[in-house]
């Protein structure tokens, strides 16, 4: 068991951060927004009756409590079972993270529905827009983009180098395909946010700029983090340190969630 202490500590941190700390922060902000911008004074912000949002808030809280209990039970099993040292913890970390992320995805889907209803209810005939082009470097420094590109090419070089050794576990070029697909996905999210339709019809231009800045920085950060994580996994495996992979994976998920929820908390609650 002592070998796994580091993993247990990191996994506990994953459980508490994603299923306790962030949901708590989010719920606090939602309550704050409801209190500061009540439906009686801001009816346009609430295309559905207030009860609908309160129910969604309750569901979000209950789901997170359930996921938190599942995580703590899982950890109790790990600590209580003497054979747990032989288990491959990596097989638990990823599925559990997906379960942890489910309430966030649900909230994301709800927010799409919310904006759609808001646009539908918007009966104004006047449309406004700033006659100003949006460019990538308005929202992020060229250094950060350069860093992301550098990390990506360093990753390709690493894969080409590791390929020479014929490791049986090594996925070869599929690593490059996977990381490239992830980066294309991040780039698509940036493009959709920059040039796509405005989700919130009442959002001011300055707010949108602030939101874009957050999304672009977040996606570039996620691109660097994802590429670095896959490179780290490959390095750990090639150095025969696969025992550390679940710990690295858990830390990576925590980092990713922190970046994602920082933006999520800000944007969705800022506008609600």
């Amino acid at each position, binding site marked *: 068991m002592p070998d796994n202490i580091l993993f247990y500590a990191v996994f506990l941190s994953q459980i508490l951060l994603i299923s306790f700390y962030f949901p708590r922060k989010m719920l606090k902000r939602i309550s704050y927004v409801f209190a500061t911008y009540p439906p009686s004074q801001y009816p346009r912000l609430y295309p559905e009756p207030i009860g609908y949002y309160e129910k969604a808030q309750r569901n979000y809280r209950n789901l997170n409590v359930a996921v938190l209990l599942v995580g703590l039970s899982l950890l109790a099993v790990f600590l209580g079972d003497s054979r747990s040292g032989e288990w491959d913890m990596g097989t638990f970390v990823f599925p559990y993270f997906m379960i942890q992320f489910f309430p966030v995805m649900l909230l994301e889907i709800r927010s799409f529905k919310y904006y759609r209803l808001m646009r539908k209810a918007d009966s104004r*005939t*006047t449309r406004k*827009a*700033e*006659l*100003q*082009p949006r460019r990538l470097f308005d929202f992020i420094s060229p250094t950060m983009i350069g860093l992301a590109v550098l990390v990506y090419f360093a990753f390709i070089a690493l894969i080409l180098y590791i390929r020479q050794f014929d490791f049986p576990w090594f996925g070869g070029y599929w690593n490059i395909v996977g990381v490239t697909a992830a980066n294309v996905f991040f780039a698509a999210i940036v493009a959709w946010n920059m*040039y*796509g*339709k405005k989700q919130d019809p009442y959002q001011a231009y300055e707010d949108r700029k602030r939101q874009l800045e957050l999304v672009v920085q977040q996606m570039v950060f996620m691109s660097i983090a994802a590429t670095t994580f896959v490179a780290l996994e490959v390095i750990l495996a090639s150095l025969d340190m696969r025992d550390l992979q679940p710990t690295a994976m858990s830390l990576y998920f925590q980092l990713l969630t922190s970046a994602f929820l920082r933006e999520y908390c800000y944007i969705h609650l800022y506008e609600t």
Partner: protein
Amino acid sequence: MEIVIDTSDSVPVFAQLINQIKKAVLSGELSAGTALPSIRQLANDMGLNHNTVAKAYRLLERDAVIETKGYRGTFIHQDAKANSAVDLNAWVTSTLSETIKTLRGSGVTDSEIRIAFGNVMNNRDQ
């Protein structure tokens, strides 16, 4: 600068866009070389059809108020201020009025003028 479009206005949306951009050029709010948003960006921001914005940009480019520089984007033309003052609609109306006046003076009836105008517009009998 902010563009405001009223979809319930009798003036077509593309014409409102053209008028506001020309007005901004004349007032100095938009100076030569100023970058404009892409058609897609402006259309999505205003919730308009891309073709509507494309039509406005096409007509502004024809009038040399804006210019497209390949992948670099769309910019206000160097001679935009002088070109924005030219009202092509007013010029067409005055030219046609003069022509019709001459034709009527020669004894051509309104009906004959309408038929001839229609034929010319449809590239017939040329």
